[in-house]
Structure formats: C-alpha cells, structure tokens
C-alpha cells in the first residue's frame, strides 16, 4: 500500500460540504416533524377502537416497515408522475422520509400510550381532573418518557436514511460527496470525511437528547 492520502479536496470544497450538510439537516428536520405528526395520527387510529381506522393504520405501518426506503423513494419520485403528480427531488425526499418516519413513530407512540395504566386515568378522573387535564398531566408526561429513547433512536436512523435521497439528485451531504468524487476521484478521503460528518451529527443529536432527558424526564428516572 503506497497510497498518498490527500485531504485537500475536503478543505478546498468545505463550502459545498457545509451547504450539503445544511440541506441534510433541513430535510431531516422537516421530514421528522411531518413524520411525527403522521405518527400521532397513526397511533390515534391504532388505539381508536375503530376497526377500519385501525386496519388502515396497521396496513400503512406494515407496508412501510417491510419494504426498503429506497423503493419507497423511487415509488414516490418516479412512480407518482405516472399519476400526474410531479414532485421536485426535495419534495419527494421530504414526502418519502415523512411517510417512512410516520410508520415507525406510529408504533412507538402507540406503545407509549398503551404503557399508561388504565387505573392512572381513572385515578385522575376520580380526584376531579377534567379529561383534558388527565391527558395533559397524567397520560402525556410518562408516555413521553417511555417513548423518548425509542423515538431518538428512530430520529437518528431517519437522519442516516437521508443519504439515500442523493440518488434522486437531492443535493444533500452525500450528493456533494458523489459530486466531489466524480471530479477528483479522492474516494476514500471524501467518503471517510462524510462518514465522520454524519457520525458528528449523530453524536450531536445523542448529546442534546441526553441533556434534554436529564432535564425534562428527571421525574421518570426511577424506572431506569
């Protein structure tokens, strides 16, 4: 092995990498926000007791969880135009990521809601809490504490998934890497640096999540 490593390609194109990383973060954030909204709707449908709503939500969850994200992305980006729905690369990326995240968060949120014992709710009503207050003060806090870690784990997976949107030419971090690679052939330096950048983003999310957990969910510490 007498390969000369040369990381100058990274420094010379740092501006492009920052733009790419910004798009990765932006798309992740928007898609996860929509995905959580979908997940709340999905979990409401799953726990509603209505068989039709439950069936639709369950089908949605199982279809998404048992097919690769790449196929979901291609189905939306290449497939929907067959129906006359044309989306830009960025729109297709956000839509597919949100739909994907929605399915996973549906199950996570459902598990959180179901983890609250019925007796807790009855106790709240018995001491004179209104229904909304029961939900706000008795159901939500421990349910959030229960799903918090699973949700963070899924958020991290979603951020990593965004690399796949480079394949429909959404100009995220990985797309910038592909572009630099095709011009300089410094494949190892480029992809290794990109990998470390993603790792840095993941560690940043983990770090923030840890701080928030200690501050917000201190009340649920006894469980762990």
């Amino acid at each position, binding site marked *: *092995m007498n*390969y000369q490593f040369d990381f100058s390609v990274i420094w010379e194109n740092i501006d492009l990498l920052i733009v790419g990383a910004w798009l990765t973060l932006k798309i992740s954030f928007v898609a996860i926000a929509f995905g959580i909204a979908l997940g709340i709707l999905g979990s409401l449908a799953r726990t509603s007791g209505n068989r039709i709503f439950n069936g639709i939500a369950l089908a949605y969850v*199982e*279809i998404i*969880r*048992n*097919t*690769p*994200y*790449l*196929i*979901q992305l*291609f*189905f939306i980006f*290449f*497939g*929907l*135009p*067959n*129906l006359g729905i044309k989306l830009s690369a960025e729109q297709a990326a956000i839509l597919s990521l949100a739909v994907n995240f929605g399915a996973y968060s549906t199950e996570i949120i459902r598990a959180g809601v179901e983890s609250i014992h019925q007796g807790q709710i009855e106790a709240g009503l018995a001491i004179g809490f209104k229904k909304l207050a029961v939900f706000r003060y008795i159901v939500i806090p421990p349910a959030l504490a229960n799903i918090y870690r699973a949700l963070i784990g899924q958020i*991290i997976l979603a951020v*990593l*998934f*965004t*690399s*796949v949107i*480079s*394949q429909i030419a959404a100009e995220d971090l*990985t797309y910038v*890497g592909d572009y630099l*690679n095709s011009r300089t*052939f*410094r*494949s*190892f330096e480029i*992809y*290794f640096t*990109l*990998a*470390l950048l*993603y*790792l840095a983003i*993941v*560690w940043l999310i983990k770090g923030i999540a840890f701080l928030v957990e200690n501050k917000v969910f201190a009340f649920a510490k006894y469980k762990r």
Partner: protein
Amino acid sequence: MEEFTLYRIFINLVIATKWTLILSVISFVGGGIVGFLVMLMRISPVKWLKQISWFYVEFFQGTPLLLQLFLAFFGLSVVFGVNLSPIAAATLALTGFTSAFLADIWRGSIEALPHGQWEAGSAIGFGYFKQLQLIILPQAVKIAIAPTVGFLVQVIKGTSLASIIGFTELSRAAALINNVTLKSLLIFGLAGLIYFAVCYPLSIWSQQLEKKLAYKA
C-alpha cells in the same frame, strides 16, 4: 426491442430477488460471526477491547449504510489498489453493518440477565468462558432470538442499497426495467410487493417469538 409485459417484468424481478436473498444470507451469516466476536469484546473485562468494539459499533450505527457501501466499493479500491466487485464490496459493507447491530442486540440480551447469574457460575467454580458458555449464553439466546429475527428484515431491506454500487439484485433490476419501460409506479410497486412478501413473514415470526420467549425474571 422486446416488449415488457406485466408477466415478464414480474418474472425478471423474481429472478433478481434470488440475489437479494443470497446477499442477505451471506451478510447475515458473516455479520453474525463478526458480531459475536465484537459482542465478546464489548462484554469482556479488558478495557481496550471494550473501547475498540464500542467505536466499531458507533461507527457502523452512526454512519449511513450507503456511505459504508461507497467506502467499501470506491474507497478501498483506491487506497489498496484492488478492485472489489460490487458483490464483494456489498458483502463487506453489509457484514460490517449487520455485525455492529447484532453485537449491540446480543450485548443487550446478555446484560438483561441479572448479574447474579455470573456470580452463581463463579461460585460453583466455573471460569469466565465456562460461565458464558454454560450459564449466560443459553439464557441470553432466548432473549436475543426475537430481535435478531427482526433485524434480519433490516438486513434484507439494507441490501437494496447495494443496487447503488451496481450489484444487480431486486432494486437494481427494478431500476433497470424502469429505465426501459418508464412504468415506474407499476415496477416499484411490484418490487415493494416482493420485498413485502419476503419481509412480512419474518416480522410476524419475530413478533410471535417475542411473545413466546418473553424473559421472566
């Protein structure tokens, strides 16, 4: 030019599915072997072994699988001057990916056991590996088996990304046929259906195992 009827599209996709399954099995077996070693390092009392395996797991869990594939396919060939075929690069990257997640799942399964189990083994005179082999692993397997089967689904879905470095499995076959026919909705719908037919039974199986083998402390 030959006509791509629905039947022919479907048959071509099913043929390509063989390679999805082959790559999944190789990666799962390879990842299982490497993952077991990484897990042993992770639970070992030796500090530097722990640290290496910790970073190994963080790297493969904290970077996109797509980049791991690019590093194996483009990166290694540039640095070492060897040209890995797409299937070799895909196997390498997916083995790394799978081993990191399996090592983590299995470590969790072992740590879920009460520590008294180790101490009991030591009390009756077992050494470290005897404790592991005769007391810890048989119990940990019960906890690990459901999430391990569940992770197989992630591996199968992960193989779809091997299409991007040019390995012709189900997803790439779908993309290639799509380029010719432009019946995108149909083709990616069918490809999704085939993935679903492979993955859904495994998901259900994993859920059933989880109920059946739930650990009772």
